[in-house]
């Protein structure tokens, strides 16, 4: 290896390791500060500084042609920045999935390159295979998540392609075990077994297909869990690459990401009252026909003018947004309505369910974009105990997270899931495009309750009408 400066290689490596320690500390502080509202922005800067110093000091000692590095970083920087600056806030979930996939792909390529490098001992060989597997699954799995979230990919559970892909996923597990122990097996049987490169290329392809099979059967409403899990996996892949390259900062940073993704995954799964295994490998049970039929009743539609009259006299209002608000891009007009209500002397709160939307904290980001102060946002545990003092609860494009079956009906597939209990409010407005059931395919008895009024139509238009009534 050639060094740029005229000092010995061991000195360089000592300097690098010292800087890596500094970067690791900055990463730890950064991610800690990201977890608090007041310090989050600073935390992000610290972690960016940590990234910069780790990358810069690595450049002291390079084997790759500097031109390749400049080209890669410049081009990647341009593409990444362009996407980040142009993306609409409603498209954040699929963009996070995409970036995540690129991180996974990078570790996949790193491990591939290490495989081609000479002098692999058996432990390294196993690490290479594991890193390829995790990185590859993260990459192709994230692409599927991207496709599903941006609604470009419409492959459901049960279709033939999905089932084929799932079989490849299960096939990939024994394949992984085989390639990890391949050196031992080959030596034991004979040296004339298939040439190394062919089985390896087969494994690379299988890994990528397995990632497709891992995510394809998982439905849109379970995406918050999947995104968090893929996020965690990309960190674990980086940490394994760190073990492989014997690099501390990769291990520390990768583990932090792996841990934070894991925590979010657990939080999301708890908010659905399901285990991670159930979400990934089972999905929702199909709803039994009988439960749906009993609940049918008459829905009471309402128009915007009547809704306005009720809202004008309300002293406390709770707004419960869901994925429908994101689809209708209604967050700005919702904030406008909230402000008009406040001017009218009404107390306004927003009830945010942890799994509303398509990624953790999805609703919070949208409302923040629309300038809603974050101290108005409340979690289910805060709003449920005081629900009977709420005059009007306005459900905007949310369904399963306000479905009373979760608390009342033991046979329901979503029974036991913590919900926002809007049915206990004095009046409930449900804004909905049609009477279709939610992601879980469960009929929602909330729509037929005595105190529920349905405001059919596009959420943005409906609220826009209420807002114009207020202004007149």
């Amino acid at each position, binding site marked *: 290896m050639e060094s740029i400066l005229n000092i010995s290689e061991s000195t360089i490596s000592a300097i690098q390791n010292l800087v890596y320690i500094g970067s690791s500390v900055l990463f730890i502080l950064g*991610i800690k500060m*990201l*977890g608090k*509202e007041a310090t*989050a*922005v600073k935390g*992000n*800067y610290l*972690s*960016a500084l940590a*990234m910069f110093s*780790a*990358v810069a000091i*690595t450049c002291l000692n*390079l084997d*790759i042609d500097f031109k*390749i*590095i400049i080209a*890669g970083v410049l*081009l*990647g*920087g341009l593409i*990444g*920045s362009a*996407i980040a600056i142009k993306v609409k*806030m409603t498209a*954040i979930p699929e963009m*996070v999935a995409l970036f*995540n996939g*690129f*991180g996974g792909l990078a*570790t996949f*390529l790193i491990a*591939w*390159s*290490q495989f081609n490098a000479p002098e692999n001992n058996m*432990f390294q060989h196993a690490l290479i295979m594991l890193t390829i597997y995790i990185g590859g699954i993260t990459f192709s799995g994230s692409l599927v998540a991207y496709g599903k979230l941006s609604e470009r990919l419409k492959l459901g559970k049960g279709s033939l392609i999905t089932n084929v892909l799932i079989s490849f996923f299960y096939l990939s597990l024994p394949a992984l075990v085989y390639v990890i122990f391949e050196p031992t097996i080959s030596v034991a049987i004979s040296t004339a077994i298939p040439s190394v490169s062919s089985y390896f290329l087969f494994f690379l392809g299988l890994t990528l297909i397995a990632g497709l099979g891992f995510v394809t059967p998982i439905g849109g409403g379970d995406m918050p869990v999947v995104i968090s899990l893929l996020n965690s996996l990309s*960190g674990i*892949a*980086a940490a394994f*690459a760190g073990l492989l*390259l*014997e690099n501390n900062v*990769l*291990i*520390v940073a*990768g583990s*932090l990401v792996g*841990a*934070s993704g894991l*925590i979010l995954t657990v939080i999301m799964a708890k908010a659905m009252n399901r285990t991670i295994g159930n979400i990934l490998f089972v999905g929702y049970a199909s709803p039994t026909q009988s439960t749906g039929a009993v609940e049918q009743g008459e829905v009471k539609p309402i128009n915007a003018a009547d809704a306005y009259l009720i809202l004008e006299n309300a002293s406390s209002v709770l707004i419960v947004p869901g994925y429908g608000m994101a689809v209708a891009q209604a967050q700005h007009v919702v904030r406008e309505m909230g402000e008009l209500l406040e001017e009218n002397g009404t107390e306004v709160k927003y009830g945010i369910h*942890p799994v509303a939307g398509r990624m*953790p*904290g999805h609703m*919070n*980001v949208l409302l923040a974009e629309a300038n809603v102060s*974050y*101290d108005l*946002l409340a*979690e289910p545990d805060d709003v449920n105990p005081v629900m009977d003092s709420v005059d009007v609860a306005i459900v905007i494009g949310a369904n399963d997270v306000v479905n009373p079956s979760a608390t009342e009906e033991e046979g329901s597939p979503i029974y036991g899931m913590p919900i926002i209990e809007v049915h206990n409010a004095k009046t409930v407005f449900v804004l909905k495009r049609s009477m279709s059931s939610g992601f879980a395919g469960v009929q929602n008895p909330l729509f037929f309750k005595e105190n529920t009024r349905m405001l059919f139509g596009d959420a943005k238009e409906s609220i826009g009408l209420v807002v114009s009534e207020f202004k007149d």
Partner: protein
Amino acid sequence: METYILLGFVLLLSIFLGLELIAKVPSTLHTPLMSGANAISGIALVGALMLSSDGQMQDALAFGAILFASINVFGGYLVTNRMLSMFKKK
């Protein structure tokens, strides 16, 4: 082997540290935390820079790894920053 045991030690401690650090995060920050963590996973860029270069194949793999890790790093940090700048308390 001894190196790997030491590195494994670092790995385990970092995971525990991460779990402790992030155990209690307000739901407002779930998305920024995820996106910020996503940017950090771009640390693979450091790994990509350490790769060896002999032959076109290795150069191509290194270029790909650097390219995709850079997209992850730049995109991740910028979008997290954009998102956080929207969170305001009145």
